[in-house]
């Protein structure tokens, strides 16, 4: 019953979304507020409806309704409840439901606001969000139905159908296939929803941008209205990316956090368009420039969000993530193509309205440096995009599929990331409108002095890698300049207001949250850069086979192999676990327990043991093979310097976000 109910509700929701689109367009052109109001209410009604549908699916997942094919394919009896529930996004059909659910929730939230002053935007915000929602619902209803059940015909064939084929009876397997063991991890609870929250929230600023284009109200109102949405989307996307890195680092056992896998890049690309957008909207608010560019960026972000969902969900690319192949690929392609062309046509139609109010004059002015930041992000985006579609392009032009691997991305984006780091330091020092090398130099010389000590100290400490020397110098530059900026602000307040240091710091930040929160986020970024430089430049690894009692060395550490244990675990997996003692300079630091688990269905899983400090990580993998024995155990050991700063940086990032986004009483993102 629940399956039919869930599916039926989805169909009603789909029809409501379509009605909402039609009513909003009709209401706009016939200037009928009642039709627009009706469209808005229809859209708001989709949310409780999708809740019903999603809860039905979650209930069936939690209680193991194995006659439902989706439930059968993603859960099994031995999975803990939290993983059964989160299996909602464990497979393609369910994650489309989840996407629609979020879309509907955000669309409802945004249409609930008071619209008095912005009444003309409303119908088009409704249209864009409802079309997006309807697209995803149509994929579920026509292509990937999570409510389809298994039916057995008289000759014994079992196949999934929504409605009973004639003469068939319902088939209920006694247990499900279960989620791939690699996905049975707490990471599964947070990583996909965070990414999706980020993806879907970017639809809202896009909807307002389209509304601004259609209605011709192309001032910065749409940007001010969606400032908060953009920030929220960007932060969730960032957190989702970092969580994915952490999950890969903890579980996959390849010693790193980022593999330039096409699906990773697919999730990174909306971030690469959204980050410059987040920056350049400030230029439009403050200076009335870059209007066309902002439109282009948000259109790109939206298309890349859909493209990202498509890449992760269609299986067009070979990737560790591409665990679903299906017929929805062409549908995505058509949808992205259509929305992109329509949005772009609108932008061209309004092109002259979006001309800058002020001309950019000085190459070193704040706005010019923001533009440079935009271009650098855009460059990285182009590199990533080309890399992902390179196989397709080369096949079309040369008949030969040519792919590019991680070295391509590292080499092509490395200098651009470096330039962004440098820019993060310089930009806060330049003035709006007009700056010269002299004015920037006057502001920069004090923080530049301690900065220059960094490469000298590192050189004395025997660091000879020029990438690292340059990278750490830039990191130090950003940190010193940011501290200096805070210091200048605090000192000024102390002088004029007579406040003590702490009060001054607090009030300074509270007065200009976006600016000082942004600075904290910059610090977070460079702290993360420390971790990335550390692991990218200084990672070392070794592979050795040891017998119990033997030792191995890596980067000043000694690892002694103490014992090996093999035992069954309660959920049926066979665990093989080694114990190693870690020594440095003859002093015992602790024990490490790398292991590999063999699941009853033959899926092995390698769990690395990690000893993590602020200075470095020791990352030990028990290399799995059937004939591991006390006499012969192969280990792979990585030494990952500084990688912990990557995670520490993401903590600082959250702090910066809270500072930037904490609700302020007098103006809640309105003015």
């Amino acid at each position, binding site marked *: 019953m629940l399956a039919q109910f869930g599916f039926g509700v989805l169909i009603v929701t789909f029809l409501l979304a379509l009605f909402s689109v039609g009513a909003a367009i009709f209401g706009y052109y016939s200037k009928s507020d009642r039709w627009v109001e009706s469209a808005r209410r229809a859209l708001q009604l989709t949310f409780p409806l999708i809740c019903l549908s999603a809860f039905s699916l979650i209930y069936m997942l939690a209680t193991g309704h194995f006659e439902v094919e989706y439930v059968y394919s993603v859960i099994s009896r031995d999975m803990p409840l939290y993983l059964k529930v989160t299996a909602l996004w464990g497979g393609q059909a369910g994650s489309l439901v989840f996407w629609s659910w979020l879309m509907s929730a955000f669309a409802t939230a945004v249409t609930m606001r008071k619209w008095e002053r912005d009444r003309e935007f409303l119908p088009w915000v409704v249209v864009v969000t409802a079309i997006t929602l309807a697209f995803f619902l149509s994929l579920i209803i026509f292509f990937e139905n999570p409510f389809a059940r298994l039916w057995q015909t008289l000759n014994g064939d079992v196949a999934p159908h929504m409605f009973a084929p004639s003469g068939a009876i319902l*088939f209920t397997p006694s247990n499900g296939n279960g989620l791939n063991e690699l996905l049975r991890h707490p990471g599964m609870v947070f990583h996909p929803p965070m990414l999706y929250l980020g993806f879907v929230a970017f639809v809202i600023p896009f909807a307002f941008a389209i509304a601004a284009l259609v209605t011709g109200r192309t001032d910065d109102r749409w940007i001010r209205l969606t400032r908060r949405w953009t920030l929220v989307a960007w932060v969730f996307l960032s957190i989702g990316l970092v969580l994915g890195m952490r999950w890969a680092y903890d579980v996959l056992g390849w010693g790193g956090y980022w593999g330039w896998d096409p699906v990773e890049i697919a999730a990174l690309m909306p971030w690469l368009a959204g980050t410059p957008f987040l920056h350049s909207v400030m230029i439009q608010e403050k200076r009335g420039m870059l209007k066309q560019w902002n439109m282009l960026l948000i259109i790109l972000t939206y298309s890349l969000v859909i493209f990202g969902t498509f890449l992760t969900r269609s299986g067009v690319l070979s990737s560790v993530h591409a665990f679903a*192949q299906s017929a929805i690929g062409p549908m995505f392609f058509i949808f992205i193509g259509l929305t992109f062309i329509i949005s772009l046509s609108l932008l061209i139609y309004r092109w002259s309205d979006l001309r800058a109010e*002020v001309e950019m004059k000085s190459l070193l002015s704040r706005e010019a440096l923001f533009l440079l930041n935009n271009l650098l992000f855009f460059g990285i985006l182009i590199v990533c995009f080309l890399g992902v579609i390179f196989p397709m392009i080369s096949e079309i032009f040369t008949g030969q*599929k040519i792919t590019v691997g991680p070295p391509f991305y590292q080499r092509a984006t490395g200098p651009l990331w470096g330039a962004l780091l440098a820019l993060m330091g310089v930009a806060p020092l330049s003035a709006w409108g007009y700056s010269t090398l002299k004015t920037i130099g006057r502001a920069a010389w004090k923080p530049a002095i301690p900065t220059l000590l960094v490469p000298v100290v590192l050189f004395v400490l025997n660091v000879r890698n020029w990438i690292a020397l340059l990278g750490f110098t830039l990191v130090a530059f950003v940190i010193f300049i940011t501290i200096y900026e805070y210091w200048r602000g605090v000192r000024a307040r102390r002088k004029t207001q007579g406040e003590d240091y702490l009060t001054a710091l607090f009030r300074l930040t509270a007065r200009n949250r976006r600016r000082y929160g942004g600075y904290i986020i910059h610090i977070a970024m460079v702290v993360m850069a420390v971790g990335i430089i550390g692991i990218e430049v200084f990672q070392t690894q070794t592979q050795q086979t040891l017998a119990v009692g033997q030792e191995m060395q890596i980067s000043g550490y000694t690892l002694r192999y103490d014992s090996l244990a093999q035992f069954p675990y309660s959920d049926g997996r066979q665990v093989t676990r080694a114990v190693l003692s870690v020594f440095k300079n003859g002093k015992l630091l602790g024990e490490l327990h790398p292991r590999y688990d063999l699941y009853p269905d033959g899926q092995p899983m390698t769990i690395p043991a990690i000893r993590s400090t602020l200075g470095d990580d020791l990352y030990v993998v028990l290399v799995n093979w059937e004939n591991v024995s006390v006499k*012969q155990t192969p280990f792979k050991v990585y030494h990952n310097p500084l990688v912990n700063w990557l995670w520490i940086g993401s903590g600082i990032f959250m702090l910066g976000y809270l500072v930037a986004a904490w609700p302020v009483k007098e103006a809640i993102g309105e003015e």
Partner: protein
Amino acid sequence: MLPSSNNGIRSRAKFIIGGLLILAAVIYLIFSSTKANAEYFMTVDELNAKSDSMVGRSLRISGAVVGSTIQFNPDTHNLTFVIANVPGNNAAIEAQGGLAKVLHDAVVDPTRRRLSVTYNGPKPDLMRDEAQAIITGHLGEDGVFYADELLLKCPTKYEQAVPSQVTGN
């Protein structure tokens, strides 16, 4: 702002030159990195047809792992196995009944063209019979493929149209 005379043109020229420089830098980075890191994506059959011209080039080959040929030496971390030819594009794979079936057919069909692969490193978790191997490396003069990177996919472990345990019950 009034469209100003000389000054305006000069400042615009500055920006255009600056923009072109960045564009040139990005294009240079892309081209030089592509040249250095391009990998030819081929099937086993295609590699066989052009094997002479492909020796030493950076290649990416996809094929089905033949389980009985997997050998791993835990002392040297040397992994050798044989892959059988599978079609290179998704459309062909779908037309032949989906990835799982294509991989299975490739492994059980002795007439399929095969390729020996050698790889140094830990044995990946998904390395097993009828997995799809995507290997990156180069072809040696001896006709053996020397892989630097190994990516594996087991379609049966993830989603499938009709659960295999259910069919034929």
